[in-house]
């Protein structure tokens, strides 16, 4: 089956989610990836949305973080202060999924402003849960479309710390969690270098060239010693994703994962 680069990205992200993960799920790309994992190889993965829904099993992708579907299919629903104190800060979440407008090579994310904070060129929605998801989850996965406006040399604002502006600040601050462990885009998969914490290309999606990755990245890209080719989406994966998107479109009149 043929597939789009968006589908490749979602499938690649979904594969990184395991049955043992307890995921703090954001709306959009992370939600599609986590639910695809649940509907394919990780049926026992635990999904948590910051609206307070614990162990939710939505049949369609939620349009907002607090859709009725999330609460109706959850084990239980807790208040938002409890969600952030007991469940996120309490260290119960193994995996946080984050996106943003900009990411740098050290996994620092900006979802606040483009330009200067006081005189923004573009005002973005802001942190939401992201600032503490980045430091309280066991590790974080980042999922973003690959282009030079998104993968930048310097983020305009650090909403959520990855490894810090120079890759060492996270450790210096004594943050105990792992931080950014994976960056999945529509072109490739990056993982942090063990020594420098810089994202390096670990796997390239089928048909994508190293040059195209560099052209779409705002910093000089490094490639791992062994770079693999990402396995193309299987028919099973594609079918599950497309059915999920179809159900979602029928329910909302819009495809929430796109």
């Amino acid at each position, binding site marked *: 089956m043929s597939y789009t680069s968006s589908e490749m990205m979602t499938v690649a992200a979904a594969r990184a989610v395991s049955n043992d993960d307890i995921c703090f799920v954001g709306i959009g790309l992370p939600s599609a990836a986590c639910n695809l994992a649940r*509907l394919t190889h990780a049926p026992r993965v635990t999904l948590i949305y910051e*609206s307070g829904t614990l162990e939710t099993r939505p049949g369609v992708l939620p349009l907002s973080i607090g859709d009725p579907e999330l609460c109706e299919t959850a084990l239980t629903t807790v208040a938002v202060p409890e969600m952030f104190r007991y469940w996120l800060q309490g260290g119960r979440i193994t995996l946080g999924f984050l996106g943003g407008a900009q990411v740098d090579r050290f996994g620092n994310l900006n979802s606040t402003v483009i330009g200067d904070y006081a005189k923004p060129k573009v005002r973005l929605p802001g942190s939401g849960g992201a600032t503490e998801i980045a430091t309280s989850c066991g590790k974080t996965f980042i999922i973003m479309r690959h282009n030079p406006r998104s993968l930048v040399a310097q983020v305009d604002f650090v909403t959520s710390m990855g490894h810090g502006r120079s890759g060492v600040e996270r450790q210096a601050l004594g943050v105990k969690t792992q931080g950014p462990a994976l960056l999945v885009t529509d072109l490739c998969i990056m993982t942090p270098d063990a020594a420098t914490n810089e994202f390096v290309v670990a796997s390239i999606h089928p048909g994508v060239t190293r040059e195209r990755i560099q052209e779409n990245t705002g910093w000089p890209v490094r490639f791992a010693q062994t770079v693999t080719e990402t396995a193309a989406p299987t028919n099973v994966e594609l079918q599950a994703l497309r059915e999920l998107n179809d159900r979602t479109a029928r329910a909302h009149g819009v495809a929430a994962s796109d």
Partner: protein
Amino acid sequence: MAEIFNLSEAVARFVNDGDIVAMEGFTHLIPFAAGHEVIRQKRRDLTLIRMTPDILYDQLIGMGAARKLIFSWGGNPGVGSLHRLRDAIERGWPRPLEIEEHSHAGMANAFEAGAAGMPCAIFRGYQGSDLARVNPNIKFVTCPFTGEQLASVPAIRPDVSIIHAQKADRAGNVLVEGIVGVQKEAVLAARRAIATVEEIVDQLPTRSPNAVVLPSWTLSAVTAVPGGAHPSYTHGYYPRDNSFYIEWDEISRDREKFLAWMQTNVLEAHPEDFAARPPLRRIEITA
């Protein structure tokens, strides 16, 4: 002790120009009808507080009701930007808007501290984030036992909080169910509080001994406004009107179009109009 008012009386009596106002609702149970009444009564210079300012706050800000916004995520959920919010921040239209920006964890802890009568909250947060650089209300304190640096934010103490909920009984006790967000904290943190509800019943259902119930004496006013959370939803009553959230993107992009829509749908409308607005529940589709 909550008295049962109609909505316009409740807003007239308990919401003043210059107030610090929290209209809470985490995607669910957003008090649209009450917010529209605040707009109709032309309140000014409000400091608006909300974790997730969305369409309702976009409307209040676009109508010039607010001088300041305290928030942690400002967007049209699942759709994109809030154009009126952006216009106010980026271009000062219709008036400049001061912002105080937090993370969700910061706001949730600040609401919790307000409800708990504390002057501040402490939590493990804002590590390495530029938010601590731009917001002077984010400080750090030292744990007296471990020496760890912990973030601290001032408690949120609104002059008035406004929520929407499922049911009240005739004494004014209010039941909230489903995604309960920070509504309970918003009410308990506030000096005054207004709850709109879908219906007033003789007796609250006794499904669970631990149901989220706000006793009458934590509220100033309770008023029945069926459909009052539209276009958000009320768990057990009607679903979210997703198509309106998408339409809003178009309506709110243009100042004139926005003003025309507000004229027809808010300024010339009434709380009773909400009863007819929620969409019918779509057929359930499960995986």
